């Protein structure tokens, strides 16, 4: 069990999640974030705080989202930790509206 960052983070990267993660399990590059599954303790603090509902408990993944499990794992292993809030991507507001949030 873990939590995963799904497609909605693309073009957003709001980073609200990293401030509430008790175990610093977020990793990322300039475009989006991932969760390191071996660190995540499944507390769920990040789920309600994401403005675009990008984070999902692996138990609740829809079949077409399951691909994100492996993507999070491999990307998280390769990318640096993201611990502090940063400015969302310039496309974030537009993307948030397009997603209906």
């Amino acid at each position, binding site marked *: 069990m873990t939590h995963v960052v799904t497609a909605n983070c693309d073009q957003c990267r709001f980073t609200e999640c990293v*401030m509430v993660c*008790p*175990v*610093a399990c977020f990793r990322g590059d300039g475009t989006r974030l991932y969760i390191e599954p071996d660190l995540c*303790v*499944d507390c*769920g*603090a990040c789920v309600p705080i994401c403005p675009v509902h990008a984070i999902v408990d692996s138990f609740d993944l829809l079949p077409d989202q399951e691909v994100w499990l492996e993507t999070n794992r491999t990307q998280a292993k390769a990318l640096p*930790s993201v*611990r502090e809030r940063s400015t969302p991507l310039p496309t974030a507001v537009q993307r948030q509206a397009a997603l209906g949030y």
Partner: protein
Amino acid sequence: MQRMRPTFVVVGAGPSGFYSAEALLRAVPDCRVHIIERTAAPHGLVRYGVAPDHQKLKQVTAVFDEIASGDRVFLHAGVDIGTDVPLDEIRAHCSAVVLATGSAVGRPVGVPGESLRQVFTSAAFVGWYNGHPDHAALAPDLGVSSAVIVGNGNVSLDVCRLLVRALDDLEVSDIPEPMLKEFRSRRIREVHMLGRSGPGGVKFSFKEFRQLADLPNVRICMPQLGTLGDEEWAGISGPDSVRVVQWLKANATPVPSIADDGRLIVNLWFKVVPAEFVGEGKVSAVVVRPSASRGGAEGEAAITIPCGIAVSCVGFSCRRLAGVPAYSPAGAIENDAGQVLGIDGREVPGLFVAGWAKRGPTGIIGTNRADADETVQSLLKRLPQLLDDSTSRSGDLRALFEQRGVETLTHADWRALDHVEKTRGEARGKPREKLLSIDEARAALRGPLAACSDDVMPATSTAACSQRRPSSVSEGLSPYMRA
């Protein structure tokens, strides 16, 4: 006279205390942070509140230990601010104090009969099965057939799950042995959870609910299934309660006439409040009446639910601390974004608050990281003034405690105690066997297990039992702090 290095004191070694320390250490590179803890062990509600069968969540303590192992952090455990040393005296020794003292006092329901034996607040009952030194002597009797839980939040679900969960699962949790002994003599056949709202207004998360509902030995029942009207199902309070309602509509059954399949029964009651706990000396029943919010319930009769134990999970408030000027009606310390305020609404210089003591008992562990960050930002805004005002202070907490005759435990001591607890636990197939008092902790530090805890110490350290922190703790930051 030499200027004092920026010196901060955090009171309380729970999540908010550690996240406050983390934020201070990052923001003020030359500062020192002293964390003061009342009990012998750090980790606060992760140790004493998070359910003993939620071991994965308890892994967050590794992060706290990383923060505490930095060479600018000093843990002083076993010091009760307000009793051993007054808060004002602590303030006079440093640049600023952050209170992260939590909400340790269980709120009563406020109805007759609460002083009967076998009626507990969640603070006491949860503290008991988690081995909190304040509650280890609670001695509840679980050899009863029926239990009532007041409240519809995650704490209620934790208490309920512990009361019904199979003993095999509890044996491998970190419920301390004396408490586990009581769980072994459980006779509970049914638990009644009393909720003030309708099914759509539950405060617990679906995930927690599913953990209870998925237990193979448990059946979820709703005695009012046929009588709740559509408007009583409504009032959905969030995405979680949508899923709870869906689950209940699909799966809950009314109370079966006989407990036919041997499963334990969890009865969920909605739109009810307790009116009275009744019994001769100890509780034998709870009288409940429809809550005020139940439409068209005028004159509806009270229901009497027999029970041998009752636990009210209806909230917490702060333990009062001399030197804190004002509390909100809900029981939190008056503050503005973490800056403590006096009764006149004016700022109390150098006094800050974080976590449950600041915002009340809401949110989960991670919520406190963002919350502590907000408090530290408030502190940083005032930092130049705070440093000017404190330049001639000593910053020497250890000397203060010595002068007051208070013996403290350090983080090195905690690492040794942690090793002792884990070793004792391993022998029983448990994650740890907790030490239940500061005296037990001190005795353990003198014992053989503490002396051989090199494997949990930083590689070059040999001073596991030393009262001083090991000098070999690396100058470099730990992986968590560096990450």
